[in-house]
């Protein structure tokens, strides 16, 4: 740490103290403040989506459904899906941790286009407001996948408004992705060559590629959907010569890579944390990097596996099946490399590490069950059942949300300048891990037994497993409320954090916590590989 930065730290000047008015927050172009704005918004959306999930699970406690009206139930799970996918999972890590950490890690003073960054937050909020408005004034009952012709010709509800909200939020995604890609290309600190970049940067780079190149496809598809809904004629309507499967192709062209938008930043976070708490360089750094880039590309080639029973051609089903296996290879590479990193390390079990280890476990299970649904004949039986629900929740909730919490705890001292309470953090990680398994593992079995998803009522023989799953939800909910409580508490009462509390590598740790407005007093210079952790002496670490 330079002397000047030290002086700034001592004087207590930081981006948090640079103006206290509402205006200084709402019109800020500082990437760190925008990250905070996003963090607050995302938290609200997360708990709205989670409330939807809780009600869905509550309904399924008894076979006939505790919520009397099936229509209400359908609107609830649609709301849960729409809010969680577009207003939490897709943006969560990039716009909060990414916005905050990427320029710091690059050794830059801000992102390349700070105004665009602020615009993206306003677009996000506008899209979110429209979607919430439409959801709370009646909502839609189409499922978050908006399949035609149900959505365009038959469904009641505010389809067009919801679609417009998602469309607008999409441009927020594109703006964020564009900002990251250009910043990583153009704003790296002196000495920060491509292969000295931490994996978190690589992951967000790969994520941004998907954001920028997949989101416009969704946007145009939604335009066509809205056109068809309004004028009752369009390219997806089978009664008028259109092809409903075209909609599914276009939708999954975005939505499958979107899964990787959600999980790739998680890979990045875990790749930072595991070396930091094992005091060892990341095992197979180059492989992990290329695996990230590989995923960004291959993830665009596999969407057809969502349509194995949809009536596509056999030839395309075969092609998409084999490509789907290809995308699993880079993910597998990563898991093995994280474990390789643990080998011969000096492992500490602070809360970020517990969340990260939880991520590895949950993601591995999510990934392995992905093999089931990539195998054509097994997919025929398992798709559209609770097996698929469990599979993608393991990846997206178990995996991605665990990673998000891991990163949030890891960088919390940097972001806020305060420590979270360590014991509470560890307890949270454990409760989420247990609650998650209890909620979603029974759903694998339910799926194998044939219980279809999106059912308001079900055959009585499925009840025991459903009750188990719903019981798990309460534990999971407690697990998610816990961090909300203690993290908020730590904002006021947490112990002050040093610039580098974890003794970690990475440029973000070379500036005070919280960082000054311009990030670095003197532009840092990178002279070594990432994760150059010195070997501690074993006896010294007792």
């Amino acid at each position, binding site marked *: 740490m330079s002397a000047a930065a030290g002086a700034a730290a001592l004087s207590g000047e930081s981006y948090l103290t640079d103006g206290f008015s509402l205006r200084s927050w709402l019109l800020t172009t500082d990437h760190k403040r925008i990250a905070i704005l996003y963090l607050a918004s995302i938290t609200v959306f997360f708990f709205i989506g989670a409330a939807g999930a809780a009600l869905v699970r509550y309904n399924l406690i008894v076979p006939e459904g505790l919520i009397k*009206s099936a229509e209400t139930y359908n609107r609830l799970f649609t709301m849960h899906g729409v809010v969680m996918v577009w207003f939490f999972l897709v943006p969560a890590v990039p716009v909060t941790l990414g916005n905050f950490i990427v320029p710091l890690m690059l050794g830059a003073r801000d992102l390349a286009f700070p105004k665009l960054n602020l615009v993206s937050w306003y677009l996000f909020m506008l899209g979110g407001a429209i979607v919430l408005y439409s959801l709370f004034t009646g909502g839609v009952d189409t499922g978050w996948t908006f399949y035609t012709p*149900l959505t365009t010709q038959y469904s009641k509800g505010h389809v067009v408004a919801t679609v417009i909200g998602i469309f607008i939020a999409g441009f927020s995604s594109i703006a964020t992705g564009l900002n990251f890609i250009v910043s990583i290309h153009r704003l790296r600190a002196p000495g920060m060559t491509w292969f000295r970049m931490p994996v978190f940067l690589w992951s967000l780079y790969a994520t941004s590629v998907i954001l920028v190149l997949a989101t416009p496809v969704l946007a145009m598809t939604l335009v066509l959907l809205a056109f068809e809904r309004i004028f009752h004629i369009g390219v997806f309507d089978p009664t008028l010569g259109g092809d409903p499967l075209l909609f599914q192709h276009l939708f999954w062209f975005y939505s499958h890579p979107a899964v990787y938008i959600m999980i790739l930043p998680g890979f990045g976070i875990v790749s930072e944390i595991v070396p930091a708490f094992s005091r*060892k360089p990341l095992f197979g750094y180059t492989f992990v990097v290329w695996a990230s880039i590989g995923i960004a590309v291959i993830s665009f080639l596999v969407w057809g596996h969502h349509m194995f029973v949809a009536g596509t051609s056999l030839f395309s089903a075969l092609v998409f099946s084999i490509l789907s296996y290809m995308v699993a290879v880079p993910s597998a590479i990563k898991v093995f490399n994280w474990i390789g990193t643990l080998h011969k390390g000096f492992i500490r079990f602070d809360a970020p590490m517990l969340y990260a280890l939880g991520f590895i476990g949950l993601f591995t299970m999510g990934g392995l069950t992905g093999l089931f649904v990539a195998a054509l004949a097994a997919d025929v039986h*398992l798709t*559209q059942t609770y097996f698929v629900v469990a599979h993608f929740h393991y990846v997206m909730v178990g995996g991605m949300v665990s990673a998000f919490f891991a990163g949030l705890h890891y960088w919390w001292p940097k972001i806020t300048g305060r420590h979270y309470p360590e014991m509470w953090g560890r307890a949270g990680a454990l409760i989420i891990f247990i609650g998650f398994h209890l909620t979603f593992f029974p759903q694998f079995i339910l799926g194998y037994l044939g219980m279809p998803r999106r059912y308001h009522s079900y055959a009585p023989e499925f009840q025991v497993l459903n009750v188990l799953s719903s019981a798990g939800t309460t534990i999971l909910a407690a697990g998610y409320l816990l961090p909300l409580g203690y993290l908020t508490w730590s904002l006021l009462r947490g112990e002050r954090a040093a610039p580098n509390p974890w003794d970690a590598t990475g440029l973000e740790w070379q500036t005070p916590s919280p960082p000054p407005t311009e990030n670095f007093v003197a532009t840092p210079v990178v002279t070594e590989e990432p994760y150059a952790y010195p070997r501690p002496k074993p006896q010294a670490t007792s």
Partner: protein
Amino acid sequence: MNLWLTAATHNATQVDYLIFALVLISCAVLALVFGLMLLYMFKYRAGSDIDRGTLPRKTWRLEAAWTAATLVAFFGLFVWGAKLYLLLFQPPADALQIHVIGKQFMWKAEHDGGQREINAIHLPVGLDVQLVMTSEDVIHDFSVPAFRIKHDVLPGRYEALWFRVDIPGTYHLFCTQFCGVDHANMVGEIVAMPKADYQKWLARSDAGETLAAAGKTLFMRYGCSGCHGGDGAGANQSQSTVRAPSLAGLYGSPVTLADGRVVKADDRYLRDCILTPARQRVASYLPVMPSFAGEISEEELLKIIAYLKSLSQQEPS
């Protein structure tokens, strides 16, 4: 709690083998991942003063080895899954054909002899059966978990599935593509019976449906069920935000109208309700029902009323 699902066809058993193989592979990988993780977490915890030696040198061989191993395993799984999948689309030439139509929110089936059924399909065991399916409105999905089969049913085109049931029994039929409000009620049963029983069933069943069954179809098609509930069960169990009176047990019972009159719900009353609902408004319900005059033919009215009558016979109240 039953954790086992009958595999009622030969194909289902084959799919189960594949799934069990996948379970075994997953367990092996999980054991490896969790085992190594727990082992390292314990052995190399920061407090342990075990001799860690020097760090292994970076090696691409290890990376290449596990990449290659995963690829080979994946390719094997792909071939296995694909072979079984392709079988689903190669029906034997002499399969018994049954036509299936999906619509919001019911399955209609028609046998070659003209026997029709709703939300149920009777089948012979030991014979190849091919289903030829289409939809009248949105995309549905015909799924029988016990047979491990599932296929989307699209409007405007035919999709086919085939299977041969080995074990007689009654199995769930689900719609597994979200198709609207009553999606969860678009269920039925597949009754697989020995060939002789099947022949008897065919002979017993009338070719063509009863008036009441036809009426039920119309009740669904004209959207009556949207407000009055799937079985005419009324607003309480109805899946709609619109409140409408229950129709179960209505026929023959007295009805209090909004203007205080009490009338008996007979054929004529029901007919007038459908054609001029505003004039027969039932007390305590909003006048939201549209008139169906000019939309429903007389013949169809007869069928719907026959259906409403049948609702009363089922539930004597």
